[in-house]
């Protein structure tokens, strides 16, 4: 799995360096802090090498969390849920774009789900309420997910870079709800001088993510 991931990354880097104009955009919240897991939706026509549907997008379960927490895929892509934990998970979705259920499965099973409608799919685990993940499915648009420093790198095609025209972006984040249309529309002038996009959102008050007392009690007794 790690090899595949590495391979795909190498592919992106390669394409950016060979014949495209790579721009880096930073996403900030209203307080000016970098926003992780923001999805920048952009028309494929301006991209140097837009994606098509993929077969082996991986959403892993690590330490009772989805990794990555937010995934952006093209319509018709298939996602693999490999489960890297040593306990079982029961992943489900009630989203209209793709309702499904992966009953308790272990790391042996690697179940797959194909997402064939655009939209946002919210992922949960039946026995671990704290596990929440998002899959953003597009067809005409392509999504880019910001990293921990809020940065997104996008390769625009020559036409866009040279004509210096303004392009429109939509920026969505799970904080905005599960409708992509709730995302903010941003006008971006090319070539990009100021790469910061400031969103009119702020992170919700962080939940106290202390470890469950009960879990500690069970752990006290040893495995």
């Amino acid at each position, binding site marked *: 799995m790690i090899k595949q991931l590495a391979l795909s990354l190498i592919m992106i880097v390669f394409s950016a360096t060979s014949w495209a104009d790579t721009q880096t955009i930073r996403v900030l919240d209203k307080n000016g802090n970098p926003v992780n897991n923001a999805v920048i939706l952009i028309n494929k026509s301006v991209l140097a090498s837009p994606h098509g549907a993929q077969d082996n997008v991986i959403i892993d379960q690590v330490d009772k969390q989805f990794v990555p927490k937010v995934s952006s895929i093209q319509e018709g892509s298939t996602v693999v849920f490999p489960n890297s934990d040593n306990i*079982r998970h029961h992943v489900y979705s009630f989203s209209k774009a793709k309702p499904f259920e992966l009953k308790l499965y272990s790391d042996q099973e690697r179940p797959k789900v194909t997402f064939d409608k655009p939209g946002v799919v919210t992922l949960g685990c039946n026995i671990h309420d704290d596990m929440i993940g998002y899959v953003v499915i597009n067809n005409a648009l392509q999504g880019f997910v910001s990293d921990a420093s809020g940065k997104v790198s996008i390769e625009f095609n020559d036409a866009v870079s040279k004509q210096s025209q303004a392009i429109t972006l939509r920026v969505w984040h799970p904080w905005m709800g599960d409708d992509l249309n709730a995302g903010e529309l941003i006008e971006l002038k090319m070539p990009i001088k100021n790469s910061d996009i400031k969103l009119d959102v702020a992170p919700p008050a962080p939940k106290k993510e202390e470890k469950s*007392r*009960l879990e500690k009690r069970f752990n006290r*007794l040893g*495995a």
Partner: protein
Amino acid sequence: MFKQFKVRLAVIFGILIAIALSGAVLAVLLTTSNQVERTLQRELTVSERLFRELMDSRAEQLRRAAEVLTDDFGFKRAVATEDRDTIVSALVNHGDRIGTDLIALQNPDGQEIASTHNLDLKQLISGEQGGKALLVSEGQLYQVVTVPVTAPNLIAWATLGFEVNNTLTEQLKELANADITLWLEQPSLLLASSLPASLREGFAQALSSEQQGYDGWLQQSGLALQETTLTTVGGDVVHVSLTTSRAEAMRQFDELLVQILLIGAIALVITLIVALFVAKTISTPVALLSQAASKLKSGDYSPTNLQSRKDEFGQLADTFESMRSAIALRERKVRFQATHDQLTELPNRRELQRLLNEKLGDSASSGWLLLINIRNFRRLNDSVGQRMGDDVLKQLAGRLLSGCQSNDILARFGGDEFALVTEGETESRIARRLEDLSVRLNVPFVVGGSQFELKFNCGAVQFPNHATELDSLIRRAQVSVKHAKEHNQFNAFYQEGFDEAHLRRLAIVEQLPKAIARGSFTLVAQPKVRATDGRTVAAEMLIRWHDEQLGWVGPDEFIPLAEQSGMITEITHWVVEQAEQWVNQLRTFEDDIKLSINISAVDLINDKLANDLVALSQRNMQRYLILEVTESALMNEPEKSIACLKMLSELGYEISIDDYGTGYSSLSQIRRLPINELKIDRAFIQYLMTQPDDQSIVRSTIQLAHELNLRVVAEGVEDEASWHWLLANHCDVLQGYYFSKPISFEELHLRLLKEKEHA
């Protein structure tokens, strides 16, 4: 301390109210403390029941929550995997959902699949508590429910436990309305409590302390207790102590108490006001009476302004008022008596003096003081009795009053003296009034059918001309009266010098007693010569007095005063002594000479002279002395005087009647006297040669005297013609300036010697 009546009344009322209030407060306190205890107990019982119900309903909720968990299909599926880690993660996930504090999962046989605590799991599924129970683990109390997990057969028992901790007890407290403390009996351990932290600690210490015990601690902390016990799954006994603060419960009664005290205070204030008001209605009339009484005390007897009331105070005021008027009447009477003479009801001497003082003090006032003295009133009183005397005085007062003008003051100034003060009159008008008065008083007084003619002497003094001082005014009036009396007049107006003469008399009276001792007296003698040849046959001894301050004082001045004061006795004694000495010296060469001594009326009724003369007669002195007596001297006490003269005559002394013709002399009376000589008063001799009347009187007197075998002496012979006339008319002896003025002993001695030589 509480002098004022109103204050005293208020204090008494106040004390009564205070006693009543304290009683009420005490009763309330007793009742409330009992009531509080009962209420507390009742409330705690209710609290206990509530606690039990709350615990039961909570257990029921727990059971439902547990069932929701175990009914969850995912949960069942997880349990069915028999994968412990998955089961644990599911237990944790679901346990956190319902907030459980304890989870245990065991297979149908009772063996542990997973558990958060070390528990004796078999007990949990014994089912005796119906799946609902308490358990204590690691010093923590849990409320637990054990429910089956079925798929569809029993695949496991799930036990969920919830801590019974301070937070829970605090919540329960809100519902049960009492503090809830749960503690383990063995070992003594506080499990949970809704008490405040400090009390909670105290409770825990009380549990672990053997001696005090927590009962004592509860008492000390002011907590009321209701206790019940619960038993845990493991058989441990858990005590449930429901406590509530006594002070809290008392608080509402404290409010009641405060209200009672407040009402009491208000009642007290109202009482005091009422008491003061009541006291005022009593004390005001009393104060008015008191004021009226002190007014009376200070001598103000004017009517009081006491209100007329219908109550007892009104009666008291009426009584007071009648007492006041009685006192005022009596006071007027007493004052009248003090200032008036009872007999005549005229102002008395003191009142007159007061009135006169007022007039003298008023510079605008001028007028006259008349003193009217009844002559010889004492004699009248003595002879007819005081009652008649009083009658006379009353009549006299009436007569005087009838002559008074409207603003005159008539007063009884002394026993036999009246005073009349009249203002603004001239001397001539006063003189006319006195004349008028004299006429009125000359009318005889008729008392007891007899008529009495009285003589009066009246002195008139004008003020402020004659005197500005009361004392001198009165004295000058008295001097004027005396002057009138001495001059036998009805009245005398005061004249300058009256008072000086009076004062001189006073000085004479004062000096007289010292005169003999000082040797101020001297004796001279006026020869008495034989009419036929002018040869000295006798000499009248005359006393002379020269005083250092008064100068020469004539016998006319001091002899009457000496007679009044009794000093005359001493003087006569001295004269008699001197006479003896003279005789003893003279008779050495002239044995026929006689010395005349003037004897006063006083001497005749006094044994002193008689004794002296008796003693002299023993030395054969009687043949040398002639005792000269005035007719008037015999008038005072005729019997005694005549007896004395007879005795002296018998001793051999010659008796001579001096100043014959001036008094009421009658030869018929003289006939009865043992006398040897008659001295015709100088008044008849002085102008003998020009007064034929005097000549006939003298001639007939000589003839009559000779008829009675008396020697006749003529006094005051001052010329030769008189001598010859007297000789022709057979007068025996002559005395006068023609022959010799009064001369000293030495001159007399010489004269006698010369006469002897010529003889």
